[in-house]
């Protein structure tokens, strides 16, 4: 009896309690029970409010996505050859807009110190957004792989860092790492291993493309102007060039996998900071491209 009185927090003098009639004791117990139930109801109500708020954030995101899909559909149906480069350029412009919104949302959420559940959703949205980009690029690679890997669809400074149609994932890890501190020793080790594996895959793909260039160049250097041989030579060259699509896809696959593993290694909060840092980095590069284009120059 002594311990139960202390848990409830009433300051009861045991002697006083013991002197009460059984009916009074029963009534006091019922009061305590009622108070406990009331507290539980209040807790449940607050939890419901939190859940509803999260659902609202989720619905807002779904609305944005639905609107995007509708506007894409409208444009898509007016283009006779579907997933062509024109469609890609339009979709990419939308993608950049949406990216900008997500970056602003991440910034706001981190500054406001929102809970992990909401942050987790924002991180998932960010990762899905990048996955969408890779899907779009895969379609563009089918339509015109040279256009894609030339980076014509990116700003000038982004193109400066180009590696097989995009950024080098190991280089992006270098950009991100200082922004993610403090990391545990375990996390540090895992990120370093990831970066090393990434570099190894990048090297392998680079060597593959170099070989493609060399063998193509060698085969084109031969003069096969006599009828049949020319056709064979060109057919072999075309088969070689078709291999480029695989390289573009594998490079994007590497980018996606790197993001996936980073999200696995980091806590939700770190992942949110990472996505914010990455988005801001790209925005800065784009801004730099604009400033470079508009810079004052000496008249010649």
């Amino acid at each position, binding site marked *: 009896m002594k311990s139960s009185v202390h848990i409830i927090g009433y300051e009861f003098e045991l002697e006083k309690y013991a002197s009460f009639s059984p009916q009074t004791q029963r009534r006091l117990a019922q009061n305590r029970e009622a108070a406990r139930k009331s507290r539980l109801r209040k807790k449940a109500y607050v939890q419901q409010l939190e859940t509803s708020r999260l659902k609202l954030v989720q619905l807002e995101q779904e609305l944005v996505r639905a609107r995007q899909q509708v506007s894409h559909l409208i444009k898509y149906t007016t283009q006779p050859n579907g997933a062509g480069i024109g469609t890609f350029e339009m979709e990419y412009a939308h993608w950049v807009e949406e990216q900008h919104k997500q970056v602003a949302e991440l910034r706001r959420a981190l500054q406001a110190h929102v809970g992990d559940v909401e942050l987790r959703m924002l991180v998932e949205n960010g990762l899905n957004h990048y996955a969408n980009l890779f899907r779009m690029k895969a379609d563009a690679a089918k339509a015109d792989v040279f256009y894609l890997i030339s980076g014509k669809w990116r700003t000038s400074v982004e193109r400066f860092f180009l590696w097989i149609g995009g950024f080098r994932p190991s280089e992006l890890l270098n950009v991100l790492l200082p922004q993610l501190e403090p990391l545990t020793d375990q996390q540090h080790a895992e990120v370093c291993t990831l970066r090393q*594996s990434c570099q*190894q*895959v990048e090297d392998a793909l680079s*060597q593959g493309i170099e070989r493609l260039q060399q063998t193509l160049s060698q085969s084109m250097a031969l003069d096969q102007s006599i009828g049949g041989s020319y056709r064979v030579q060109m057919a072999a060259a075309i088969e070689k060039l078709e*291999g480029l699509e*695989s390289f573009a896809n*594998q490079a994007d696959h*590497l980018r996606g996998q790197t993001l996936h593993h980073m999200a696995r290694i980091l806590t939700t909060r770190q992942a949110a900071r990472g996505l914010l840092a990455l988005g801001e980095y790209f925005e800065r590069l784009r801004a730099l491209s604009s400033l470079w284009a508009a810079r004052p120059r000496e008249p010649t």
Partner: protein
Amino acid sequence: MGLASENGLVIFSKSSCCMCYAVNMLFQGIGVKPVMYDIDQDPEGREMEKALMKLGGAAAAGPVPAVFIGGKFMGSTNEIMSAHLSGQLVQMLKPFHHSMS
């Protein structure tokens, strides 16, 4: 595919396939030298190609590269790249490392 079960790491390739070369370079970069088997140089090349297409399934970009570790089909470029990033590839190669040239 008797070839695959004799050696630790076998990659079925084509002499013209540059992605096969890339996968070869990846393995060499991590310290193992795969046995490269060019199916276009084999008289039964067509049959092998058909068999590899079946193994790879609808998702594969082509019959080659087809990577076998310990006689077991591991997949193509996609699967090998994913396995390397997750750290699984090095683990899978460990029992065969000593037998590599």
